[in-house]
């Protein structure tokens, strides 16, 4: 995986909400990992569903895309796929850079 930053443009008026939003995304990765370790597919489905809704609303398209993949993976019980998506999510969060416009 490259360490290239991923630039995301977010509406200026959401700036105050972003620190909490990002903190909650990091917590989400931990929750996803814990749910996967416990084999709790329902929890994974719910977390994926939430990511899908909130990501794009704030302008984080990939959060919504990964959310949908996690929701679908949980429904299908695809552990390997879920693991890969969660890793991708953690990597994305580590590299994301926000520009306000």
């Amino acid at each position, binding site marked *: 995986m490259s360490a290239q930053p991923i630039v995301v443009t977010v509406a200026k*008026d*959401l700036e*105050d*909400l972003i*620190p*909490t*939003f990002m903190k*909650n995304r990091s917590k989400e990765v931990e929750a996803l990992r814990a749910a996967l370790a416990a084999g709790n597919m329902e929890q994974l489905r*719910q977390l994926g*569903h*939430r990511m*899908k*809704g*909130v*990501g*794009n*609303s*704030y302008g984080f398209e990939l959060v*919504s895309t990964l959310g949908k993949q996690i929701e679908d993976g949980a429904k299908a019980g695809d552990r390997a796929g879920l693991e890969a998506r969660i890793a991708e999510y953690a990597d994305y969060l580590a590299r994301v850079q926000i520009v306000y416009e």
Partner: protein
Amino acid sequence: MSDLASGRVAHAAQAAFRVLVVDDDPDMAGFLALLLAQQGMHADIAADGHVALEMIAAAPPDLVLLDVQMPGPSGFDICRRLKSEDSTALLPVVLITALEDHESRVRGIEAGADDFLSKPVQREELLARVKTLRRLHETRKELEGRRLAAEVQAKEAIRKAFSRYLSPRLAERVLRESPDGEAVFRNLSERTAVVALFADLRGFTRLSETVPVSRIVPMLNEFFTELTAAAHDHEGTVFSMAGDSLLVGFNVPVPQDDAMTRAVTTARAMIERFAPVAARWKREHGLAAGIGILASVLHQSPASTAHSTCH
């Protein structure tokens, strides 16, 4: 958690349109509240269905934005509950569902949702839907206000019309007991023993010959004012006022067990009220006026007819 996600987004305007955002995801709730506040609306946040129902009961908002998927009661449950109660049935509810979730939309329609919003939420879509519902809500409120005003006006007109013939207390009772103006009169086809009180002015013919007409009318008004007040004090109903005579009924339109006693008491009160007027007329016009009164039970067999006269 930011202030937006955890608490209230207040707006300075007192009469701001109030929206309750119900979403267990604080980021989503905070996002929606911010967009609404930017439009000058007041947004409150409830993190679950129980809290939402409590907040709505305590201070009903003008609109509810409701997430479908939440722990505890779902958006559908809350929507159904709001729509089934009279006090909240008209409260507009927007359900927030995933874009591709057609099943949720169908369930939402069945639960009575007024509109839907897709997640991820597009600002323009949110604002357009909220503005439309706000307009509808305001129109509905205005129409309801006008309807109430018209109702009050109609009732007032009825009250005024009644008050010419019934005592204010009796008119109030008729209006209260028959909001449709019918109930009290429903038994009018039945035979009722009515006590009628007839009063007229002795010496009226002489009066009309000696006093100019322009002065007679105010004098008759004075006479009728005193006698009508006496009738109303005892809840009598004025049947007719003609020339110098007044016909008052008791035991109608509502039953009065003590109708005859009321008639006699009314007769005494009429004499008492008229006495100072008669004294003044005598002073001013040299007239010896008095009143003749007959009270009698009507609509019964002649054998049981009771009457009494006094003057």
